[in-house]
């Protein structure tokens, strides 16, 4: 042990360890920077989407909420607000209107903003709190329906309230999509005066909670144990499928960026480790001569690597911590106003990953190294021992695979990337080998410097292959992150184009469809698709009655208790993704259902199960013949359960549609409601904005994270070049001795590096395109866009970048007097 440390210190002094140390340091710094940063951005994204709840957590009950919850939350330093909601009647003069009343405490909202205006469809102004006591706010629909204006006095129960503003935006309004009554918002202190809340009133009570993430998690766990009948607790993930879906994609993007940095790190460490061990063949042989056993040698080097790995990784982790702080500072106000503090977990994680990577890559060659023939001391031309034993390499590969899957944070993403990596490695190895063969054939016909450039490549075939693969992986990661990233993001964003539907229209009667189509045509709006909607309650699965108490999850219980919206369709819509089974054909029997994947999972419904619905007293049954994935964040009308027309057509139905209402044409809704008074319009523009905002934030975050991955990529390139630097110095010195001029040497190196770079570029572009295709189609569920620039930049950029890096790393070749080099390297 002490000998190992002494040797380590000597080697450090001799400069032997610097590349390995540096590669590891940058690798871990990149991993932890990304990790710290994504960790913080994710926390921030969560906070932001929590605006849709107006809080981080909401405790919901159908009766007044027990005081112990508020006391506990306050004791934990959490902020609180209360709301209650109930249906009632607003009266003004002779007119009255059924409304959904929402009473809010002075601290509401905890997250997000209220926005109000003084006139109907006027510009919105942000308001930190709800209405003051004695006043009320009404939404645009209520104003229109009753012909109200700001300043009017209305009656709510026994209370008279002055109308102070028009509600432009209410953060948690989006939370209940199919809330059909117009909104009246009042101060919670006015409720007793209304005398509307009596025993048996249908009132929804909410306790809004916000604050520190840890305290929230602890509170949620505590509260979950104490929820009574009719009480439940919700976070953002529970609230809106659109947002959940957008968040999942966002996390995958960030995970991808983190994963790519891990791959680059692994490659850099592998290259540096390989070089280190290659340079130690002689030392090993000498130590063997001096009587060291293989076991002693193994221990000696292992201790060195562990000490080296640990210190480099820890230092890298600290650099990462500093890096992300700088990053967060740069982004202040750009991405988020205030990033939550990072946890220290990434530091421990980065150190462990660094150490694992080092061991994964140095253990296998180390096992070979210690078997170096002792004779090498005398006959230096004896090479390293023959590589044997797949076992040691399997160990290394296994460790790397485990690290990658862990970094991906998700098995499927990890496996795709790992599979892609393996594929690229194998195919790359084959093609690189083929190209090198071709080139070494070609060199016989080449002249002058071309001959030497190509001869170098061919002679160092093993080293060239390693370098090409290292370069290719580095380039591939960079291409994937730059160009492909843009494609993936824009394809995601195009799922929500500027003309994405922003209004839903419900309660359309079948006989109103022709007139409604005519209305759209007259207003020069594209006629949307109308979807039939049948309400039914799920009563049995495989003829076993469905009961809420059979499901542990609160959300599932509610799903089971309420009526489902069923629909029928002949054809599958383009965006439906059938995950299991198949869509029906017109000739099939009609008793079939297609069920949304997530619902099937929640209710434990399998393909082939028989579902029975009670639709207005009639029992309708059918088998599940397909499971569908629904892209919730596209703002199209979606249904959990769809049947062929034959099964539901005879049931009482109304229609639903979604359409894009260009901004500035909001008054058109007045005409629409005048002509079809039974319709309900639901405004989802606010949700769309929120989803867009998440996309923009993610796009920004990925761009910045990318800069660090880029750094890791450059280290890979540098390490790969350095790996053959000594050989190059030596050869150049010999050539100089024989009379070669700088120009000739430089030209030969140019040719060699440019060829290496171009081959790597071809492989990298192929790999990046394939990976992007798989990622788009399989992981992110987006259409793949072919990008020709991947190839242009891959090949040209690869050749130029590697030539530059190579010449930089070997520039001393042209400067140092040859004798010194020859002596040093002999």
């Amino acid at each position, binding site marked *: 042990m002490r000998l190992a440390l002494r040797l380590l210190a000597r080697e450090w002094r001799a400069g032997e360890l610097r590349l390995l140390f540096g590669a590891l340091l940058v690798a871990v710094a990149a991993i932890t920077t990304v990790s710290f940063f994504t960790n913080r951005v994710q926390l921030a994204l969560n906070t932001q989407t929590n605006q849709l709840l107006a809080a981080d957590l909401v405790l919901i009950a159908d009766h007044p909420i027990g005081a112990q919850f508020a006391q506990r939350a306050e004791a934990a330093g959490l902020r609180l607000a209360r709301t209650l909601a109930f249906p009632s009647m607003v009266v003004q003069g002779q007119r009255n209107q059924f409304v959904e009343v929402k009473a809010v405490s002075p601290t509401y909202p905890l997250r997000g903003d209220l926005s109000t205006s003084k006139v109907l469809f006027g510009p919105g102004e942000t308001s930190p709190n709800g209405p003051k006591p004695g006043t009320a706010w009404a939404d645009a629909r209520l104003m229109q329906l009753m012909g109200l204006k700001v300043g009017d006095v209305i009656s709510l129960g026994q209370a008279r309230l002055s109308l102070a503003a028009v509600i432009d935006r209410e953060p948690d309004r989006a939370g209940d999509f199919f809330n059909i009554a117009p909104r009246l918002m009042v101060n919670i202190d006015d409720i007793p005066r209304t005398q509307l809340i009596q025993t048996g009133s249908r009132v929804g009570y909410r306790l809004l909670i916000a604050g520190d993430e840890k305290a929230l998690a602890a509170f949620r766990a505590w509260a979950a144990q104490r929820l009574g009948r009719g009480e439940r607790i919700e976070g953002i993930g529970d609230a809106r499928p659109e947002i959940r879906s957008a968040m999942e994609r966002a996390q995958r993007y960030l995970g991808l960026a983190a994963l790519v940095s891990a791959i680059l790190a692994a490659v850099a460490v592998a290259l540096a480790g390989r070089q280190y061990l290659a340079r130690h063949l002689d030392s090993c042989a000498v130590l063997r001569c001096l009587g060291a056993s293989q076991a002693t040698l193994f221990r000696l080097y292992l201790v060195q690597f562990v000490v080296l790995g640990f210190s480099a990784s820890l230092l890298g982790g600290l650099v990462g911590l500093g890096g992300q702080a700088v990053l967060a500072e740069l982004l202040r106000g750009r991405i988020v106003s205030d990033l939550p503090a990072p946890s220290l977990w990434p530091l421990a994680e980065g150190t462990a990953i660094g150490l694992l990577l080092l061991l994964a890559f140095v253990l296998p060659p180390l096992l070979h190294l210690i078997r170096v023939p002792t004779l090498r001391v005398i006959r230096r031309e004896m090479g390293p021992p023959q590589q044997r034993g797949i076992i040691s390499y399997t160990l290394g590969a296994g460790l790397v695979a485990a690290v990658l899957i862990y970094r991906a944070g998700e098995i499927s993403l990890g496996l795709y990337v790992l599979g892609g990596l393996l594929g690229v490695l194998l195919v790359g190895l084959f093609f690189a080998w083929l190209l090198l063969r071709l080139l070494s054939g070609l060199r016989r016909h080449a002249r002058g410097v071309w001959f030497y450039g190509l001869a170098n490549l061919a002679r160092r075939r093993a080293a060239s292959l390693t370098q090409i693969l290292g370069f290719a992986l580095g380039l591939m990661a960079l291409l994937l992150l730059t160009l492909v990233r843009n494609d993936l993001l824009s394809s995601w964003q195009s799922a929500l184009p500027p003309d994405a539907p922003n209004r839903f229209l419900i309660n359309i009667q079948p006989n109103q469809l022709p007139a409604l189509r005519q209305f759209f045509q007259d207003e020069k709006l594209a006629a949307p698709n109308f979807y039939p909607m049948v309400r039914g309650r799920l009563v049995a699965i495989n003829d076993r009655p469905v009961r809420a108490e059979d499901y542990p999850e609160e959300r599932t219980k509610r799903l089971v208790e309420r009526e489902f919206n069923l629909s029928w369709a002949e054809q599958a819509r383009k965006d439906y993704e059938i995950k299991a089974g198949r869509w029906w054909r017109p000739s099939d029997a009609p008793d079939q259902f297609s069920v949304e994947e997530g619902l099937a999972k929640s209710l434990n419904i399998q393909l082939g199960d028989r579902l029975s619905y009670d639709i207005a007293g009639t029992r309708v049954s059918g088998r599940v013949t397909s499971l569908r994935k629904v892209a919730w964040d596209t703002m199209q009308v979606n249904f959990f359960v769809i049947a062929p027309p034959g099964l539901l057509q005879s049931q009482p139905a109304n229609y639903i549609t979604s359409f894009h209402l260009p901004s500035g044409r909001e008054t058109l809704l007045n005409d629409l409601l005048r002509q079809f008074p039974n319709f309900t319009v639901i405004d989802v523009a606010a949700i769309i904005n929120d989803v867009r905002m998440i996309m923009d934030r993610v796009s920004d975050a990925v761009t910045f994270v990318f800069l660090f991955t880029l750094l890791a990529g450059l280290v890979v390139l540098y390490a790969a070049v350095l790996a053959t630097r000594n050989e190059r110095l030596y050869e150049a010195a010999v050539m100089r*001795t024989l*009379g070669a*001029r700088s120009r000739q040497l430089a030209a030969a190196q140019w040719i060699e590096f440019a060829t290496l770079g171009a081959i790597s570029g071809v492989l990298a572009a192929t790999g990046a395109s394939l990976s992007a295709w798989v990622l788009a189609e399989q992981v992110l569920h987006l259409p793949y866009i072919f990008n020709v620039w991947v190839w242009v930049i891959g090949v040209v950029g690869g050749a130029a970048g590697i030539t530059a890096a190579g010449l930089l790393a070997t520039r001393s070749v042209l400067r140092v007097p*040859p004798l010194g080099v020859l002596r040093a390297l002999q």
Partner: protein
Amino acid sequence: MIVGVDQLGKSIAHEGAVLTILHDISFAIKNGESVAIVGASGSGKSTLLGLLAGLDTPSSGSVTVNGVDLFALDEDGRAALRGRSMGFVFQSFQLLPMLTALENVMLPIELLNGQDARSRAQHILERVGLGERTAHYPRQLSGGEQQRVAIARAFVTEPALLLADEPTGNLDSATGANVIELLFALNRERGTTLVLVTHDAALAQRCGRILHLDAGRLVEGA
């Protein structure tokens, strides 16, 4: 006179102190002469040879080769001069591992953009007895064979001056003797000036003149 050495000195900084390897060396070598540089290990023999070839730079003094001041030229100028008028044989052969025997020998001609590189290289390899092994890589050749390739490479441009650094140092005595025979035979055939560094007294005796170095000073033979 082909080589002129005037007050040549070489010192290096080592751990804060200045270490002088060569002191004030002056001598001249005439065309066609054969000269052995001898001395104990660390006496500065190889450093002196390196300076004669312009592979290293001196701290003081000058070296002229064919009347050209070596150190008035830049690195490229010295490389060009070496290519035109010098050949080298090293103790550890210094063949380029990525090139075959034939390609190693062709290299100096090609660096000078010379004609008929392949046939000239082939011819001299046959002369050193390796006509059958031209397609082999250095790692496929024995030590003696590698040194013969190195000798072929040194003579292929027909240099006026041949510098050899312990040419037999890495070889057994029989193989070494063969290599020496070859070296002197080619020297005679082509009228080359030969300067060699050696430990081997027998080898030194075969040269026309012996320069004896002791601790960086020329003590005999100037």
